[in-house]
């Protein structure tokens, strides 16, 4: 079997078998060898057993999204083929041991037998299966073995020299076999290398969000662990000491967001990282942030709900939650990065926005997005601006001064001679409680209308990619950016244009112009089309077609392509 230009490799095994290690070694080594790489995993909500899989796409051109197709499948246990059976085709090569292929598939799939267990045992333990497999696949590409060695050194360095050496030995055995398989012709991979890729960085969504927050001046992160958001907190905790920031795991999400509000009140930039259920617990404090005009940044990595739902899977199902959470009327900003680069810049910018408008800023990602890896040019930190909007509390300072644009200059305690009074009760300009009807009207209008108008006016427009005069407009938001991007490229029709929203709410009224005279197709990963509904409510734009997916899995290029073809052809 021969694969040209691009190959989709899937590794499947039980939780605890080290698939993630293979994913890491492969993506790093293949990227360093000069290939464009993309990886994503789907995993079960358990610590051991079950079946988890990772897809790695390796290509001569940029690949940044999920495909259903499996070219090479490496099963680490029996049951993997059944788990992914609808992704197998006649050209799929199964690389591995016969024992790991269920009877029903024998004779029907292209099995290239590789004695992974035996090879690992020769090195000393079955545990080395994962590094042997990683070596094997890099060998198929005639990849740079030095990159494998280096990564193993980095990854296992803390476990001692012997562990590093044994893993390198295991990887080398795999590597040599991979080269042999190519030479024998059992499997051939012909993918052009690209020198530029080596200088790029390999990031995950988790890292992009976490590093964005650190670049944006986050000084305090409070959280309660919840999949799939925990990765961001873990990542930031690893960097807390160097960056000189506080990361605190707290008793519950209520405490997490209230601490963050306190930190912002005292002038420090703070964030919480959570998922839908945790965010639900935060809604009262979100409302306090609205009333007290207390900035806060919230990262919400979505997973399917309601309730516990599917803890480790993906969905864009919490848009309505973040749009409507919190009692009373108050503005908020919702951002949903579409690419890893954007996740870095937007998360950093979220802190400036919170500081400037004194509102909650919510960064919506999802399991698929945070677990996505690919190579990209390193974000340029020079493009990150640190814009503080803090004034001195001079004598007579009024925290809630009535202003034309709805934004009252914000002072923080101890900066200036006067005091700062913030309040979750309706208040006068100084921050003291009021029950006055006229003042209530003024304060409501300042917060809920004038400030919202100011934000809307400043809101960036969505990104239009393709022919302005097309008949069809395919709309994506957040994590569906790349899948729509690649699908439209594949479709290759001048008649289909892509419009992407990373700034999800509030929408700039000018965004309406993109939709004029178009047939609108909205692609989103939820059951009702929450963003399509938002377009109708905010811009009066009606979605002619909704392409929806709600099985807890991300869209594949094939699925979106089928759906678009059905509409446009």
């Amino acid at each position, binding site marked *: 079997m021969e694969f040209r230009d691009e190959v989709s490799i899937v590794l499947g095994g039980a939780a605890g078998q080290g698939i993630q290690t293979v994913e890491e070694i492969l993506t*790093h080594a293949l990227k360093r060898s000069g290939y464009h790489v993309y990886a994503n995993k789907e995993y079960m909500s358990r610590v051991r057993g079950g079946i988890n899989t990772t897809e790695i796409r390796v290509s001569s051109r940029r690949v940044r999204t999920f495909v259903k197709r499996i070219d090479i499948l490496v099963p680490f246990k029996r049951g993997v083929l059944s788990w992914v059976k609808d992704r197998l085709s006649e050209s799929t090569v199964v690389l591995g041991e016969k024992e790991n292929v269920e009877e029903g598939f024998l004779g029907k799939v292209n099995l290239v037998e590789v004695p992974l267990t035996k090879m690992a045992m020769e090195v000393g333990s079955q545990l080395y299966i994962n590094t042997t497999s990683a070596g094997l696949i890099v060998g198929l590409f005639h990849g740079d073995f030095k990159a494998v060695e*280096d990564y193993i050194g980095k990854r296992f360095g803390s476990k001692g020299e012997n562990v590093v050496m044994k893993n390198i030995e295991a990887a080398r055995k795999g590597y040599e076999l991979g080269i042999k398989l190519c030479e024998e012709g059992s499997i051939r991979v012909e993918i052009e290398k690209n020198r530029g890729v080596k*200088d*790029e*960085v390999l990031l995950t969504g988790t890292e992009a969000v976490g*590093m964005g927050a*650190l*670049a*944006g001046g986050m*000084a*305090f992160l409070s959280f309660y662990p919840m999949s799939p958001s925990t990765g961001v907190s873990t990542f930031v905790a690893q*960097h*807390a*000491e*160097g*960056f*000189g*920031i*506080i990361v*605190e795991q*707290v*008793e*519950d999400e*209520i*405490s997490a967001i*209230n*601490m963050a*509000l*306190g*930190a*912002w*009140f*005292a*002038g*420090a930039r*703070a964030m919480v990282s959570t998922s839908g259920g945790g965010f639900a617990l935060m809604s*009262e*404090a979100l409302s*306090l942030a609205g009333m*007290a005009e207390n900035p806060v940044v919230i990262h919400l990595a979505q997973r399917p709900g309601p309730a516990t739902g599917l803890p480790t899977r993906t969905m864009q199902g919490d848009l309505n939650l973040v749009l409507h959470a919190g009692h009373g009327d108050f503005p908020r900003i919702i951002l949903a990065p579409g690419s890893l680069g954007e996740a870095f810049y937007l998360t950093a910018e979220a802190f400036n926005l919170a500081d400037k408008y004194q509102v909650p800023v919510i960064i919506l990602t999802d399991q698929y997005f945070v677990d996505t890896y690919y190579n990209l040019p*390193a*974000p340029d*930190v020079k493009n*990150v601006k*640190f814009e503080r909007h803090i004034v001195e*509390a001079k004598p007579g300072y009024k925290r809630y001064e009535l202003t034309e644009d709805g934004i009252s200059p914000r002072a923080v*305690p*101890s900066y200036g*001679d*006067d*005091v700062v*009074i*913030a*309040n*979750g009760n309706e*208040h006068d300009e*100084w*921050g*003291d*409680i009021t029950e006055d009807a006229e003042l209530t009207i003024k304060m409501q209008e300042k917060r809920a209308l004038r400030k919202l108008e100011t934000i809307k006016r400043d809101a960036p427009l969505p990104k239009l990619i393709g022919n302005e005069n097309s008949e069809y407009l395919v709309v994506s938001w957040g994590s569906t950016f790349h899948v729509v991007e690649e699908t439209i490229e594949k479709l290759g029709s001048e008649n289909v244009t892509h419009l992407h929203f990373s700034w999800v709410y509030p929408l700039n009224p000018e965004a309406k112009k993109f939709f004029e005279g178009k047939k609108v197709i909205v692609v989103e990963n939820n059951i009702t089309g929450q963003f399509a509904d938002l377009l109708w409510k905010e811009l009066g734009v009606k979605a002619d077609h909704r392409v929806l997916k709600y099985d807890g899995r991300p869209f594949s290029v094939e699925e979106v392509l089928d759906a678009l073809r059905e509409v446009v052809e």
Partner: protein
Amino acid sequence: MNVQLPIGRELFEPRRPGSKDIAWCPGCGNFGIRNILISALAELGLKPNEVAIISGIGQAAKMPHYINANGYHTLHGRAIPIATGVKAANPELTVIAEGGDGDMYAEGGNHMLHAIRRNPDITVLIHDNQIYGLTKGQASPTTMVGMKTPTQPWGVFEKPFNPIALAVALDASFVARTFMGYFKESVEILKKAIRHKGLAIVDILHPCVSFNRINTYAWYREHTYWMEDGPFDRETAFRKAIETDPLPLGIFYINEKPAFEEQVPAYRKDRTPLWKRKPKLELVEKFFEGKRG
């Protein structure tokens, strides 16, 4: 009251228009607590802009409006986490979390438990009048057994929460109880609590003249006594803590231990308050550099 009031008190008297009309009932114990707090802050030589009072919800939680200091009137039960965030962002501030018995022991109970473990350097003042005032007379976690209320017309049968015993059991850093009717002693306790490094809990008994006809000024005088010594070792403190009638007043327990802000890596090498720090973009760049290889 023939007590010499300290110099500096006037600094803490607010002059804002919204601080004139005090929402407490005539004769409410909260007036006394306000006086005690102002005196303590003034005697400690603090300035209004160096103090932040973070309150929850309830009559007690209206304090930030009646004292001239930085203030944040927040949500029911959430004063402690917010105060923790304030102190973490700016350890140079004197931070006080304030609220009633419902605020701190019911709605905010979980935060109280974990704040004791976390030990931020804040002072928690609980205005404990053993009843819900602002919602008009329902039982609180510290209401005495047998008291009939509009929502417990059959009489309260849940055993009252014992905040002192809980705090000692959790090895809290500073645990005290006072009755606001004793002005001078209360000022001294509050001064010690505010000066104490670490979480200081002061349960302040006070009457609710509108809804609690049992625990009156006279009742508190009759049913409390000042402990001669104290603070005690943990076991003795616990024995004292479980005495219920009369209720002991004074400092039960002090356990000097590192505060949250001293433990977090962020402040180990650099004492600059978080809010004054800037992002370390050079480290971001270095991170990306490492991601090339």
